[in-house]
């Protein structure tokens, strides 16, 4: 029972990290059909923002709190820059966008190496987040993992509410569902795209802050995570968030269970096979956005 719960919690916390990363992707991929390979480097930017802030705000707890909005803004600004300079010109060619943004991610990685050095750096975690919480029945959960889970859920909640209730959210949904109809209805789709990209990339920055609690920060930290996050979006289906939420946790639990029963490397292969098998059943992902548009 304890082992089962432990594995389940590990799975859920892997899922929470995936979810934080995939949320931003679900937004940008879903809206603009654009695969942004530099998303992983926005995560890295968020993590390094935390590191830099900790040099000035020395109290670990405060620096983490300050880092969340700052990293959101930094990564979001980088996203907008990328959108304005490159992605906007390539909407008709999504596959080329993938390659172009990969080139950008290469440059950003090298930039990080030149600025911060190739070796990984470490941030100090606040004391509150280093220990464990003992639950009744001899179960323990790590505080930092619990914090990340809470952060991921809060991000989902905030994003869902923003998409449902605010005028901006309504415009974003309209553009996702039918871009042309939204445009003729007077919605400035280019501006909506830019805002979406700001929010999506900003969420990557927040994910980066969360990742500083789990391990060291390095120039290539984004590359490994990004593929899993893309798989989450592909399997979850684009155009809405609930698919990504469910799939992130499902993949996390599958990965943790596979790791427990076999080894880490075999678990990765199991996850991949499971995804290919799943796409046989639902090639468009878990939930598809049904519209009457012909596109």
């Amino acid at each position: 029972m304890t082992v089962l719960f432990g594995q389940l919690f590990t799975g859920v916390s892997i899922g929470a990290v995936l979810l934080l990363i995939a949320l931003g992707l679900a937004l940008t991929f879903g809206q603009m059909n654009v695969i942004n390979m530099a998303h992983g480097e926005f995560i890295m930017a968020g993590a390094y923002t935390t590191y830099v802030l900790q040099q000035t705000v020395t109290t670990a707890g405060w620096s983490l709190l300050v880092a969340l909005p700052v990293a959101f803004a930094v990564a979001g600004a980088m996203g907008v820059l990328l959108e304005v300079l490159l992605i906007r010109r390539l909407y008709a060619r999504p596959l080329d966008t993938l390659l172009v943004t990969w080139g950008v991610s290469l440059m950003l990685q090298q930039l990080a190496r030149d600025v911060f050095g190739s070796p990984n750096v470490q941030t100090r975690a606040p004391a509150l987040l280093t220990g464990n919480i003992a639950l009744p029945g001899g179960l323990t959960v790590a505080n930092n993992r619990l914090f990340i889970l809470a952060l991921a859920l809060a991000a989902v909640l905030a994003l869902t509410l923003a998409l449902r209730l605010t005028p901006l959210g309504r415009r974003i949904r309209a553009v996702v569902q039918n871009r042309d109809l939204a445009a003729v209805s007077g919605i400035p789709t280019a501006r909506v795209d830019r805002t979406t990209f700001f929010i999506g990339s900003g969420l990557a920055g927040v994910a980066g802050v969360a990742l500083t609690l789990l391990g060291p920060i390095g120039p290539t930290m984004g590359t490994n995570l990004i593929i899993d996050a893309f798989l989450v979006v592909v399997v979850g289906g684009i155009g809405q968030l609930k698919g990504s939420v469910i799939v992130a946790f499902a993949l996390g639990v599958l990965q943790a269970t596979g790791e427990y029963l076999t080894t880490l490397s075999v678990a990765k292969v199991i996850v991949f096979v499971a995804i290919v098998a799943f796409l046989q059943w639902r090639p468009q992902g878990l939930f598809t956005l049904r519209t009457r548009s012909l596109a």
Partner: protein
Amino acid sequence: MTAAPLVGTDPASAAGTPAGGRRGRRFDGPARTAAGFALGAALLFAVAPLTLSDFRLSLLAKYLCVAMVAVGIGIAWGRGGMLTLGQGVFFGLGGYAMAMHLKLADAGPGELPDFMQLYGQLDELPLWWRPFASPWIALPATVLLPMAVAFGLGSLVFRRRVRGAYFAILSQALAAAMVILLVGQQGTTGGTNGLTDIQGFFGYDLDDPVNQRMVYFIIAASLLALLALARQLIRSRYGELLVAVRDGEERVRFLGYDPAGVKLVGYVIAAGMAGLAGALFVPAVGIISPALIGIVPSIEFVIGVAVGGRATLLGPVLGAVAVAWARTALSERFPGTWTYLQGLLFVLVVAFLPGGLASLWALARQRRSDPAGARWWRRSRAADPAETRTEVSAA
């Protein structure tokens, strides 16, 4: 923004139309091709071995292996529109199949390869290593194994119409899974180090420069053979169908063809080419490791193709060799700068010159021959994509 682009809207197709449009020129058809192959053969078999040092020649052998992968990507991506970001997997399967055989041959009959003795967990050869002791199994496996994996994945994925970016992500995930698997099973795969220190190649000592030259000649001949194969394929009815599937999959389906089958053939052929390249890479370089076949090298295979011109026959080969050469030349002198340059090259070529450097050649000729061609070039750079679209499809 539509899911199925109109025929001819892909900018790459501007450079990729089959040579039918050039008919009526003075020098065309079989004569032109034969002359091209003769020139290529002269360069590869006479000029390069006579002018380059042993060291440079072995580097060239390595680049030519990358070029063989590029020929396959040119077919799958340039012609078929399948952006495969996992060619490293097939390159690796071919490479590991060859390296396993050579390691076993180095160790001698009944002995374990050196790294297995080093890690010391095994008393006897693992079951799945055993077939590779025989060259009659190992050599065909270098090509057939990648093709089988590509067939398995492709037949599942294409039939369910998983395509575009979805397919690209899946192929990349395959590369990630393969690397993690190889690294994780250190005792039987050599882990991060890979299979290193390969000394013999079917009885020939690879340290001997004469034998290295022999390996180079094998690689050069294989590249020419693959190019001939690719040329036949592109000119065939199948080649036309592949381009049609790229430009309008739904239309091809409505015409009664099976796009999934068409794509599958292209993908499997590309995988086979990558497998052969990996197999020949091993004797040329003496090592195969996860770092050579993972996500990053897999995308780097694509760079050369994009730079050279994805939809042309020679573009991928020349682009791959040029990029690999530039990488060696520049990273020797300025290690950090190369990464910036590589990224920048990728961004500029893909974003602003999607037909690759080959399209510069085509554009220059077009401009010289008729003034309307020049106007097409100017207007295609204009901001309004709709204008470009009508121009291209009218051409």
